[in-house]
């Protein structure tokens, strides 16, 4: 009789390790069975089996599957049941993740995220940027790259690289003109894929540009990504603190530490005389930070140069480090780095053992 995967599975269902009341298939320990010519490859989870029982079980599997006619070799790959990175768990190789969020659109969140990423890279960190703002992905414009990323090693997406930052954006996978209408579950699927299927390599910091708002999509996102800390971007006139309160509540709900607030569009610096005009009022960021007991990380003035640099495909920090605004971003990056380290040290992920 010709050996098939189903036949092998049937035989595996007869394997019952000592001390277990069910067989290894029923217990969900068999993850994958592949048949390549005369070679059988079985992937299984160790489950709670102690070492001697595991050894005996593997022996039994090899013997009983090897007894099929036409099977020359049986290879069993055993994964430890715990501590293995899961699709929803930490990303291998990525040391810390900072989410850049805003409770409403139009506050310059993506500009802040892009410049922060560049400033972190200038400071010597290996930086990745995930543009999870699927409603209005803007990183391709800001980084001046819109080629579709290559797929490497069969199923991994290689991020694009510009200005020392590796980045991936939904914008790279869409036609320029297609409107983007997403619902929560779809958003989560896409972002999970971005985390799992992108070959980020070794990163010190992954900056995640979240979609604006505090709805379902955002909540699901932060639920599934083990974010080390969140930065909330706001503007001085954002005195409707209720919005921000919602954002804070969202992050608290999923145990994500808030690193602090960035006040963007913090006044206008006149390009001819250097006069600072508090267009949108003053003190919004301070009030907010004080009210919620989180630090005010930076106050970033409106500068035409920031906008121009972004539109031309080089975030200002990468284009002209000497600019006053660039210096503000570099200082912000230093603070974020410090806050991330502190957060990672004081909020370790639980160890799963046994």
């Amino acid at each position: 009789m010709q050996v098939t995967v189903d036949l092998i599975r049937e035989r595996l269902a007869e394997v019952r390790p000592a001390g277990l009341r069910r067989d290894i298939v029923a217990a969900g320990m068999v993850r994958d069975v592949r048949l390549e010519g005369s070679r059988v490859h079985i992937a299984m989870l160790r489950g709670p089996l102690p070492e001697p029982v595991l050894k005996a079980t593997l022996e039994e599997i090899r013997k009983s599957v090897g007894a099929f006619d036409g099977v020359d070799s049986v290879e069993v790959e055993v994964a430890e049941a715990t501590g293995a990175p899961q699709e929803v768990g930490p990303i291998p190789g990525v040391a810390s993740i900072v989410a850049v969020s805003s409770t409403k659109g139009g506050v310059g969140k993506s500009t802040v995220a892009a410049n922060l990423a560049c400033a972190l890279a200038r400071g010597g960190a290996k930086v990745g940027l995930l543009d999870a703002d699927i409603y209005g992905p803007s990183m391709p414009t800001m980084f001046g790259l819109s080629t579709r990323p290559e797929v490497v090693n069969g199923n991994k997406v290689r991020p694009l690289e510009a200005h020392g930052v590796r980045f991936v954006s939904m914008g790279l996978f869409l036609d320029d003109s297609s409107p983007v209408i997403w619902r929560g579950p779809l958003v989560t699927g896409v972002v999970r894929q971005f985390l799992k299927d992108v070959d980020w390599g070794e990163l010190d910091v992954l900056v995640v540009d979240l979609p604006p708002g505090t709805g379902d999509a955002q909540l699901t996102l932060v639920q599934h990504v083990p974010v080390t800390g969140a930065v909330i971007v706001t503007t001085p006139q954002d005195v409707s603190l209720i919005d921000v309160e919602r954002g804070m509540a969202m992050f608290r709900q999923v145990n994500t530490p808030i690193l602090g607030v960035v006040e963007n569009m913090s006044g206008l610096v006149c390009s001819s005389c250097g006069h600072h005009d508090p267009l949108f009022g003053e003190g919004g960021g301070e009030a907010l930070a004080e009210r919620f007991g989180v630090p005010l990380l930076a106050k970033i003035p409106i500068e035409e140069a920031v906008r121009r640099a972004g539109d031309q495909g080089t975030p200002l920090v990468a284009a002209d480090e000497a600019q006053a605004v660039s210096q503000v971003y570099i200082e912000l990056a230093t603070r974020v780095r410090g806050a991330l380290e502190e957060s990672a040290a004081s909020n370790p992920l639980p160890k799963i053992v046994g």
Partner: protein
Amino acid sequence: MSDPAPIPREIRRLGVNAVRIVWQDDHQAEYGNRYLRDNCPCAECRENPRRSLPIVGQDEDVYPVQIGIVGRYAVSMQWSDGHDSGIYSYRTLRDLCPCSTCTGAGSEELKH
């Protein structure tokens, strides 16, 4: 604003019988596997509840084959009966703690 959710320091499977969680506030919780499985918080299980007593030792008929970390607020459990849609938030796990301090009059412990 509600208290910050509790966070586990270590989650350990005790053979095929139980799971032990050591919380960051040093509280220790030991859950019989059957108890934990019966309290699976997924929608399907909540619709069709089955509740057992939280007794350790009679529980080897079901155990977590895999435990994964979900974001910063929960763990996922793949059970040996094949069920894997349960996501146990730390808050839920803490509330499920069957120890006498947590279940008895001394529910003070919960507030830490």
